[in-house]
């Protein structure tokens, strides 16, 4: 399991600076793992900070706007993951079941 210290994280991400990381942590947009020997960052944190930097740099998003976008993205990615799991499960069902579910969905969605 890869772990990064704050310094390693800053070295790994082009647009990341110490004040920026501190700000993201203070805003609780990224949450390092705590232990009695300090804070460390996981791969998921690395990827998240990378995205935060890119939203900050490329879109000029700050604080509230950044927070809102991340909340929506978390929800969207999470739902996409759930949808994929649901579809994978459905794909393994017999044709008859899938047809019944398809029909129900079409009725609900009105097309």
């Amino acid at each position: 399991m890869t772990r990064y210290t704050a310094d390693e994280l800053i070295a790994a991400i082009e647009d990341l600076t110490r004040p920026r990381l501190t700000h993201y942590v203070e805003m609780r947009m990224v949450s390092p793992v705590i232990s009695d020997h300090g804070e460390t960052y996981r791969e998921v944190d690395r990827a998240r900070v990378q995205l935060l930097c890119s939203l900050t740099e490329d879109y000029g998003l700050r604080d509230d706007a950044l927070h809102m976008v991340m909340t929506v993205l978390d929800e969207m990615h999470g739902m996409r993951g759930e949808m994929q799991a649901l579809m994978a499960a459905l794909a393994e069902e017999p044709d008859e079941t899938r047809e019944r579910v398809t029909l129900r969905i079409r009725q609900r969605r009105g097309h």
Partner: protein
Amino acid sequence: MDDPYQALGLTKSASQDEIKKAYRKIAKTDHPDLNPDPAASERFKAAAAAYDLLKDPEQRARFDAGEIDAQGQERPQQQYYRDFAERGENPYRQYSSAGYGDFSDVFEDLFGARAGRGGGGPGAGMGDDFGGGQQDFGGFRRSGGGQGFDMRGQDVRYDLEVDFMTAAKGGATRITLPDGNSLEVKIPEGAADGQTIRLRGKGGEGYGQGGRGDAYLTLHVGDHPDWRRDGNDVTLTLPISLDEAVLGGKVQVPTLSGAVSMNLPKGASTGQRLRLKGKGIKGGNQYVELKVVMPPQIDAELAAFMEEWRAGHAYDPRKGMGG
């Protein structure tokens, strides 16, 4: 990648500034975290690789001069946030079954009732281990004058790593929260991975007269090279010498509460498990898994003895394995 300039929609004459701008532009539209289209992802990957090659003027000059080629310059396969965020265990997801109305039960049956984990999602399906904390959520009230209002601070959630022994035996660990708050946290004996500890009043600042929120620490118990744990039972891997394995006898065995003496049977083998009743966590058992360790050097005497021994006592531990 054949032509990094082409990947960025540029020509060789582009300035460093144009290269950066072109990359940013592609990142803006095609970033895999924002655009689910696989074609966009491909464009982004090519642009990122091109940018990595060209962003450093010296490296770019060497490429332009033909000293290095574009191959092998690709970024190591990098995981985007999306790759983590689509998984069930994304620690930053705040709510899931919210918004499914009458079908939230169906949702939770399918995907599991997730705790409201994210940084600031108070109340969103907090798990049972928060013991009544839920009633405290959102306890804001308008103040008499109608000016401003008092609201309890946000509850915040952190992940806390504790080492194997602290979790098994219980103890205290001194930590600094990301908000700078330094404090000692009591870890209960037998703390389990995933267990939550509530720190009352260590969350976000309240508004007006409102008190601070609470901090919730989700425990992550670390591995130990010699110890393993299964609930309240623990297993220790105990190295024993060749002569101890053959002859048996008393050996000193570390337990969670100091060393004890244990009887080793004659002819003990690697993998054999012995039980120390009640020496686990809170009355659980400790198992001792033996591991026979050869002497660091096989001296002439031992080798000679073995040669002689083998002549009359050879045995085949692989008998019946076939193959």
